[in-house]
Each structure stands twice: as structure tokens, then as C-alpha cells.
């Protein structure tokens, strides 16, 4: 490709390399950020495969819920549905972005390693153990506490689900702390936060939002556990009559909080598009502001309809909820606009089929935009998509799930785009471009069908709880469309795994800077700063030399 950009100007300094390690012993003890990142990424991919299988099974049952019984009863159906929704956020999107960040962010800010590498390793293992406890306990008749799970051994399984989820959240918080500290305190000299690369900045914002809000979820789980242990209603929640624990913690996967899992998608977009277009990113400071604003609007721990008093203003009619829902469109729209502007400036560089990473970044951004737009529609009270005026008060219509799925699949698609973009940094491999395009197209189309059909189904008053069989005929047709989307998403996920497996089998390839990148990670060799470890001397390290030294850059462009 034509090279018009180059890494920022740097001075030489003593090389500090991460230790080269191999083998099981080192996998258990490593403090190398790339290895730790790969642990997270593998966990996220396993989670993705599990989630898409559950998604297809849920789709099959939803097409004829009255007569089809895939899971062995309504309750199991509900628990798997809840696992799917929570798993997409906590067990797929979060570890994928944490993994990418563990690998890329230290390099982007010019650090030789992640901050607190032992804590990062501990977080990775804690996450795996917690996720294992959570999933196994749901399969062992646990889950988020439907009423007939309240006795005997099943009560223990429910409690295990809660503690497993708690361990997952603590691990995510620990990893967030490592990432945020890396961006804040391990930047190379000369790189102020204002000049931080967009993915690094987006991960700082994400980590901040997670660190602020996920402890509230942890408190929710403690409340649910105490209620479960001491009898219903100690805190007024969990297993008391018709209410499940799920609805106490559902705010995690509903707007605005669900947006918190998609903030890094904007960072991927901001990192990939300028490189693909071969020009400098337009209005870097504005992009930082938009990502920060999206982070603010993704703080949703305050939106807890479960604990609202009877007679209070319904959740969906509250001013702040509506304002957050409508405003969230702006930063995503702005980021997409910025990406469009950048691409327009570098349209000559984009010829033929778009690269897989560009498809992933743009596709993820578009899905996210569709998600926040659907979220804005969902808060328009007269449409009653939230369902506060419906028979099943507080649960809402299927549009609530649709928004979540659009946003989460947007995040996952962008993360997959990030895989293709930073593949040479993650494992030194080159992923198949064609396989990438196919997989990302599947994810994109599948996400649109899956989430979009659910949003539309909300207009037909389909309840956001699989135990309520929809009554409208249109809802059946939409369930089929949604299931087709789930199948496409599954194919996409399989394609991603197959491409990665193929690349690993072929061995390292692709070089250290296959795209002509603009940020510091592209100046590493095998993921390590050999010389120099990037002491940035340029005042604006993200500026390309095209602007600073036009004549130098034009020569470089010709050479490449």
C-alpha cells in the first residue's frame, strides 16, 4: 500500500525488552503483556463460540416457543437466555477488548509492558475461573434465580452463579486498573494524554466507566446473594414471588450501561480508518472528546428500575433516562462522521475490496450506530417499547434486547476488525484477508438481522422475557429472521476462529508494520521496542510527516 504516514519521531534510548518465554510454565507465570493479552483473547473467543451456539439454540426455540423445547423447560430456557445476554457483554465483548488492550495499549503509549503485569495475569486467570463457575452453575440448574430454583441444591447452583459472576467482575475491574494505569502513567516522554492514540484513549475511558459502574453491579450481586441466603426480601430483591435476580441486574445489558462495552469500538474505528486511508486522523482532539462523551453517556449504574418504589415515575418516563438515550447517538454519529471525513481525504488509498480490518472497524461502528439509534427510538415514551405501560411492567419489550444485541455485536465486530489490524502485534501472524471479509460480513449481517428483528418485534409488544410467548403473528416471522441472524453470527464466529487457527498453523508472517501504521506500536519488532523504545520528541506524536516534512514524506511514499 502507499505509505504516506510514518511513526512519530523518536530518540534512541537503552532497549528494554520483554522476556522471551515459552511453554506451559511460562504461560502460567508470564508477565509479558502480549502473552497475557492472548490469554484474554482466547477466553473471549471461547466465550464467543459458546455464545453463538446458545444464540442459535435460543433462536430455534423462539421460532415456536409454544411447542419446541430445546432446553428442557421454560426455566432452563430463561436461564440460557439470560446467560446469552450477560455472557455477550461480560464473557465475550469485555475479554476481547481487554485482550486487545493488553497487547496493543502498552505499545501504543511507548511502554515496554502493561502496568502491574502480575495483577493482569491474576485477573486473566480469575476471569477464566469465575467464568467457568458461572457457566457450569447455570448448566447445573442455577442461573439468575427463577422462582422454582429457590430450594435445595438448585439454590446452591444459583448462589454459585452469583459468586462466579462476582469473580468475573472483580477480574475485569483488576484488568481495567492495569490498562488505565498504563495509559495514565506509562506513556513515553513527549506523549501527553491529549496525544494518546485513540484506541488507548478509548480503553482509558472504558476502564474508567467500568471502574465506576461495575462495583455497583457487584453490590447488586451481594444484595441478591444475601436475599438468597437469608430468605426472600432481606433487601427486597431476588426470588421473592414473581421477580428473578436477572431483573435486578439487567441494567448491565440494557441501555445506557450496555454502551460501556462498545466504547473501544470507537477507538478501533479511530485507529484503523486513518491508516487504511493513508492520511492523518482528522481532528484528533474532537475524536478524544467524542469518545469521552460516549463514555459519560454509557454510565448506567443509576438506572435500576428493579429498586424503584411503587408509584414512582416509571423508569422509561424519567427525564434523565430519555436524555441519555437520545444524546448517546451524537458521539457515535460524530465518530462515524469523522471516519467518513478521513476516508474522503484518503479515498485514493482505498481501492478494490476493503481490507478486513477496515470492514470490521466500519461495520462495528455502523452496528453500534444502529444500536444507539434504536436506543434513542426505544426511549421515545409514546412508542412504549420500554413496556412500562404494558402488562408486564418494568420488563419491557424485546426492543430492549434488540438494542443490546446491536450494540454488543457492533462491539464484537469492531474487536474482530482489531484482530485483523493488530494481528502482527498479537501473535506475529497474518490473518487471511478473504476469510476476514467473509467472517466480518457474516457478523455484520447477522448482527443486523438478529438485533434489528428484535427491535422491530418490540413494536408488536413481544415481551423481553422468553417465558412470555408472543401473540402477534408478525412476531413469529421476526423470530425466524432473528434466528437467521443468529446462524449468520455463528458462521462469522466460526470463520474468525478458523482464520486464526489457520494463521497459527502457518506460523509467523506479515512483518512488523504491514499497513503503514501511524502510532508507536508499529515501530516495535516482534512486539518489542528494540531500538528505540520510543522516546517521542515530536510535539504532536500522532502527526504524520506529510504535514511536518512534506518533501521527506513524498519520497517515502514513492519508495514504498
Amino acid at each position, binding site marked *: 500500500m502507499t505509505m504516506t504516514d510514518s511513526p512519530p519521531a523518536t530518540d534512541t534510548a537503552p532497549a528494554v525488552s520483554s522476556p522471551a518465554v515459552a511453554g506451559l510454565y511460562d504461560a502460567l507465570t508470564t508477565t509479558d503483556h502480549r502473552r497475557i493479552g492472548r490469554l484474554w483473547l482466547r477466553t473471549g473467543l471461547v466465550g464467543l463460540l459458546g455464545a453463538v451456539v446458545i444464540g442459535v439454540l435460543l433462536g430455534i426455540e423462539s421460532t415456536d416457543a409454544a411447542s419446541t423445547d430445546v432446553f428442557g423447560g421454560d426455566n432452563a430456557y430463561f436461564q440460557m437466555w439470560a446467560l446469552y445476554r450477560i455472557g455477550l457483554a461480560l464473557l465475550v465483548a469485555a475479554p476481547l477488548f481487554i485482550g486487545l488492550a493488553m497487547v496493543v495499549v502498552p505499545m501504543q503509549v511507548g*511502554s515496554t509492558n502493561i502496568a502491574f503485569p*502480575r495483577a493482569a495475569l491474576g485477573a486473566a486467570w480469575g476471569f477464566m475461573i469465575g467464568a467457568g463457575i458461572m457457566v457450569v452453575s447455570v448448566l447445573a440448574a442455577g442461573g439468575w434465580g427463577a422462582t422454582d430454583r429457590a430450594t435445595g441444591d438448585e439454590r446452591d447452583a444459583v448462589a454459585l452463579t452469583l459468586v462466579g459472576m462476582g*469473580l468475573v467482575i472483580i477480574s475485569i475491574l483488576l484488568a481495567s486498573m492495569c490498562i488505565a494505569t498504563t495509559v495514565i502513567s506509562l506513556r513515553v516522554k513527549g506523549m501527553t494524554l491529549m496525544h494518546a492514540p485513540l484506541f488507548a484513549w478509548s480503553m482509558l475511558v472504558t476502564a474508567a466507566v467500568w471502574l465506576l459502574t461495575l462495583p455497583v453491579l457487584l453490590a447488586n450481586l451481594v444484595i441478591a446473594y444475601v436475599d438468597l441466603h437469608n430468605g426472600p426480601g432481606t433487601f427486597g430483591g431476588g426470588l421473592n414471588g414473581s421477580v428473578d435476580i436477572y431483573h435486578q441486574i439487567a441494567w448491565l445489558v440494557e441501555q445506557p450501561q450496555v454502551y460501556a462495552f462498545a466504547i473501544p469500538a470507537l477507538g478501533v474505528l479511530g485507529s484503523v480508518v486513518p491508516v487504511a486511508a493513508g492520511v492523518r486522523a482528522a481532528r484528533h482532539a474532537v475524536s478524544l472528546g467524542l469518545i469521552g462523551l460516549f463514555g459519560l453517556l454509557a454510565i448506567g449504574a443509576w438506572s435500576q428500575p428493579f429498586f424503584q418504589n411503587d408509584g414512582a415515575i416509571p423508569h422509561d418516563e424519567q427525564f434523565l433516562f430519555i436524555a441519555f438515550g437520545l444524546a448517546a447517538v451524537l458521539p457515535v454519529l460524530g465518530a462515524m462522521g469523522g471516519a467518513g471525513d478521513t476516508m474522503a481525504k484518503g479515498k485514493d488509498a482505498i481501492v478494490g475490496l476493503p481490507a478486513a480490518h477496515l470492514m470490521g472497524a466500519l461495520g462495528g461502528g455502523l452496528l453500534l450506530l444502529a444500536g444507539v439509534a434504536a436506543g434513542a427510538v426505544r426511549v421515545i415514551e409514546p412508542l412504549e417499547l420500554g413496556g412500562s405501560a404494558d402488562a408486564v411492567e418494568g420488563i419491557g419489550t424485546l426492543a430492549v434486547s434488540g438494542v443490546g444485541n446491536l450494540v454488543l455485536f457492533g462491539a464484537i465486530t469492531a474487536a474482530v476488525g482489531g484482530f485483523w489490524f493488530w494481528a502482527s502485534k498479537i501473535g506475529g501472524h497474518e490473518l487471511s484477508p478473504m476469510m476476514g471479509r467473509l467472517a466480518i460480513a457474516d457478523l455484520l449481517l447477522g448482527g443486523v438481522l438478529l438485533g434489528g428483528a428484535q427491535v422491530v418485534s418490540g413494536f408488536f409488544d413481544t415481551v423481553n422475557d422468553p417465558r412470555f410467548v408472543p401473540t402477534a403473528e408478525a412476531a413469529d416471522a421476526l423470530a425466524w429472521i432473528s434466528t437467521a441472524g443468529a446462524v449468520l453470527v455463528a458462521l462469522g464466529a466460526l470463520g474468525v476462529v478458523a482464520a486464526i487457527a489457520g494463521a497459527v498453523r502457518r506460523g509467523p508472517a506479515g512483518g512488523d508494520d504491514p499497513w503503514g501504521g501511524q502510532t508507536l506500536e508499529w515501530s516495535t519488532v516482534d512486539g518489542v521496542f528494540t531500538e528505540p523504545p520510543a522516546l517521542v520528541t515530536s510535539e504532536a506524536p500522532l502527526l504524520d510527516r506529510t504535514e511536518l516534512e512534506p518533501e521527506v514524506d513524498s519520497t517515502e511514499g514513492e519508495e514504498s
Partner: protein
Amino acid sequence: MFTTGFKFFFGIGVALVTAAVLYGYTTGGNWVGPISWGWKEGVGEHIGYGVLMFLGLAAMGIACTLIFFRDADPADQADYVGVEDIEPTMPVTGSFWPVIGAFGAGTMAVGLVLNTAIFITGLVIVSLVAVEWMMDAWADRATGDPEANRALRNRIMAPIEIPALGGAIIAVGVLASSRILLNASKLGAVVIAGVVAVIILAIGAMAANSIEFKINRNLISGLAVVLGVAILGGGVWATVEGEREFHEHEVHGSDSHEGDESHEGEDTDGEHDGEAEE
């Protein structure tokens, strides 16, 4: 003047506090309530108000920390301590403790639900990991030489670790062995005890003479590991299976024999032992 990190977090803080007040007013709060943290009159929907207000204050706290440290900017840090460049971070040595700590946390989580003993086991593991982790973190920064750091750490911790590890291995070995012997028949227990003792003696002899007779140390280590795993696995299996059946003897005589009778008896083969034998 104001750093980027400060602006971001302070902006979030102000926005959230403002949102809290707005939320309070729009969900039924009185005029004074939302701005006085509920000191006078109601704040509206108090859960959402409380979460927003405290998240806002937390964000402001982070903002103040960031501006105090100038966003941890390397140039500012170098200026502050009066050096040209901040030293690059020291490489951190690999360690098993994070993984062990994670398993300890998982054990605690499972034990919290299923069994107090499991929970305490997890707690002990996590506590040990905390101590070891702190020592490792201290030793990593003790001097500029990683070898010297390792030696320093080992000089302090080895006198504690080696006896503690040895004690733990002996305790687990004894416990597992006792479970196996209690599960086996009387004759079987004698045979097992004899065989294990002979193997231990053989391994010890091989280790002691490994240099003179050029015995492969990996072979000795492998044998020791196999024996250890066999005892541990057998102990777990025997614990699950339970002890062999003991028949209590009829008691004739003084109360002082009762204590013995509860422990001594006759096994399923009908063989007698103990003082209470008739």
C-alpha cells in the same frame, strides 16, 4: 494548566453530579433535597440519585488526583524529581502467585456457597499469596540487579517457605495416607504401609547415591511425583469412599474404657483387636 486527564474526569464528575440533581428533581424530589443530599426533604428516586451523586464525586476525586500528579506525564515527573529522563520501568519477573491467587479466589467463591472448610482453604491460599506477592513486589525494586533481587528475596523467604512447604507436604501426605489406610482392610493397610515405606526408602536411597551411581535425577523426581500423586489421589478417593466398616465392641467394665472403644474395634473380616476384645 488543567491536564487532559483532569478535564476528562472532572467533566464526568460535574456532569454526573448535575445529572444527580436533575434526576432528583425530575423523579419527585423537593427543591432543597437534591442539592442538600437529602439533608432537607426528599431527593426523589433515591437509588439512582445516590449512585449518580457518588459516581460524580468519585470521578472528581480521580480528577483531583490526576491534576496533583500532572496526569503522570513523564516530562513533568522528570522535572519534579530533577532528572532529565524518568527511568524505564523495571521488568517484572514471572511468578506463580497470580495463578495460585486466582485459584484461591475461585476456591473461596465455591466454598462460600458449598462448604466453610473449602472457603477457609481458599482464604488461607489467598492470604499466603498476598504475603508472597508483596515480598516479590518489594524484591523486584530492591536493587537494580534482578539476580541480586532474587537472592535477597530468597534469603528472607526461603527459611520460611521451605519448612512451611515441607510441613504442608508432610501434613497432606499423612492425612492422605491415613485416609487410604482407614479405607483399606486391616491386612491391606499393612501391605500398603509396607510398600509405601519401601518405595520412600528406595527413592531416598537413590537420591542419596545419585551422584555416585549416576542415577538420572529426573527419574528420581518422576518417581517421587508419581508416589505423591498416588498418595494424594488415593487419599481423595478414599475420603470419598469413606472408612471401612468398624464394629463397636460390647463394653464390660469401667467408664475409662469408653474412649478406647470408640476408636478401636473389629473390621469387616471379623478380626479382633484392641484392649476391649472379649
